[in-house]
């Protein structure tokens, strides 16, 4: 995400000053998957998450010129979604439910036709474990692993301390390790998965 920062800033300017609908669409497409996963990790429900992300993205449009003042739009958006998710939770007084029924959004195209362990299978397992992590741990892990945020940035988005982040990482990695325990080390094919 960081190397595309210049693109994002450009689109921001276009939207802020020229009301460029194409640039806006590019921003939406760029951020949607991450934001949506982030929201789902918080509240569990994919449909409500879609609404939350939509509301946040509308706010971006409504900001007009102020949008150009934001340096890290990714962090800003994560914060917005987080706030929206927390507000929703407070409103509904619902417990954060880990939605394991995410087949609808499991669009990674993993082929697990047979029981043979292969690289994709491992990725799938890891993803599976991550999805079942306690919400905060999942969020922290995703922000670091998938979104490439630094500890400081995670602190800023989540409003938690460095130590808390460390704890969540430990939980995440330990669970992943346990889940992969039965995968023997004979996996020699270490091709990088895109």
């Amino acid at each position, binding site marked *: 995400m960081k190397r595309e920062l210049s693109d994002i800033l450009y689109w921001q300017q276009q939207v802020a000053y020229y009301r460029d609908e194409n640039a806006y669409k590019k921003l*939406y497409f760029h951020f949607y998957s991450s934001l949506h996963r982030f929201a789902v990790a918080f509240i569990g429900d994919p449909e409500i998450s879609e609404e939350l992300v939509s509301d946040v993205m509308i706010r971006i*449009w409504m900001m007009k010129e102020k949008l150009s003042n934001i340096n890290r739009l990714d962090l800003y958006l994560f914060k917005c979604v987080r706030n929206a998710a927390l507000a929703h939770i407070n409103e509904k007084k619902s417990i954060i439910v880990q939605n394991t029924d995410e087949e609808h959004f499991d*669009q990674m195209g993993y082929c697990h036709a047979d029981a043979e362990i292969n690289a994709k299978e491992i990725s799938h397992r890891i*993803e599976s474990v991550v999805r079942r992590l306690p919400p905060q741990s999942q969020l922290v892990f995703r922000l670091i692993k*998938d979104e*490439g945020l*630094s*500890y400081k940035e995670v602190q800023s988005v989540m409003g938690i301390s460095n130590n808390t982040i460390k704890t969540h990482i430990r939980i995440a*990695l*330990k669970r992943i390790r346990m889940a992969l325990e039965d995968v023997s080390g004979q996996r020699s094919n270490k091709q990088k998965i895109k």
Partner: protein
Amino acid sequence: MANNAEIEFYDLMGLKLSGDATPEQLERLQQLMNEFPEFMTLYTHIENAGRLDSYPIEILEQSYASHYVKKRLLAPTEANYAPITSGKKHSFKIRNYFKYAAVLILLPLVGLAVYNLYEKNNTKHNTQGKFKNEVATEKGSKSKIMLPDSTMVILNSDSRLTYDEHFNKQSREVVLTGEAYFDVKYNKEKPFIIHTDKTKIKVLGTAFNVRNYPQEDIIETSLIRGKIELTFDDKKDNRVILNPSEKIIISKKGLSQNTTSKQNNREEDIFKLTRIVAEDSTIAELAWINNELYFVNKPLDLIARELERVFNTTIIFKNDVVKHYRYTIHSSNYNLEEILQIIKLSQNINYRFISKDTLIIE
């Protein structure tokens, strides 16, 4: 029961993943991995797991299409602004006996600010027996409404939505003739139910389009987000659940078929399930909301009926054969002349206006 080395490994790995690790820390990480092969394995697996892909383009297109509808309504672009109830025939009837009638009339003109006003005024004054709240549109105009529960409804031309004083008590029930787009406020306790001809559509919190014009033989429901359940008044056993991107087309004739007949009423006679597709960020079934017309391989008589409704014009066919000609048209500004030109060019068809709002196709 993790030991110290394990914890240290996790901490270092976290720093590596986030890019925060110092050279010394990286060295120490390598050391640990050399000492404990299982750490090395875990590290490799996680590194290789790769970044999660972006959602498939179809999901993004779909999501953007329904997002765009909302955005267009709440935050219209400054250029090409086409307010929902603009147009020469800017009239709509509101009939009810409730105090907030004035607020409803103002709604399309004043926009968002009015919603707050509406909620404040919605005190339960009227206790004199039953009354109905009704919003109706005439041909050539649309209307945007916010219901007492914050559900947003956009009514297409020549449509009517009614609800009574029980709305938002135990349930939220409305009756619809015509066409409307619903963005239903999430409320698990109070199911939102739409009554159409002999069909009930039950929703929890979701966005979808319903089409139930009396002149048409079909009832259509397209689901954008959420989940809805359809039941049929005369066939209690049939129950259909729609998932996002699904569309159901119900035959009114099929619904009213006599169930006492010996023949088993096949499902295909009653309804058909298809998918909705977002092309170029436009969903055909929702195009009307953004003042767009989108016909995909539709016969000319159906197109004509739609044009009549949108432009409040009468269209007469001199020649029955051309009624069956099929067209695919996507027009992004409501312009009758433009559309007629397209139709005229592609086949050997002519048209002429015999009065301000009547035309003949031959």
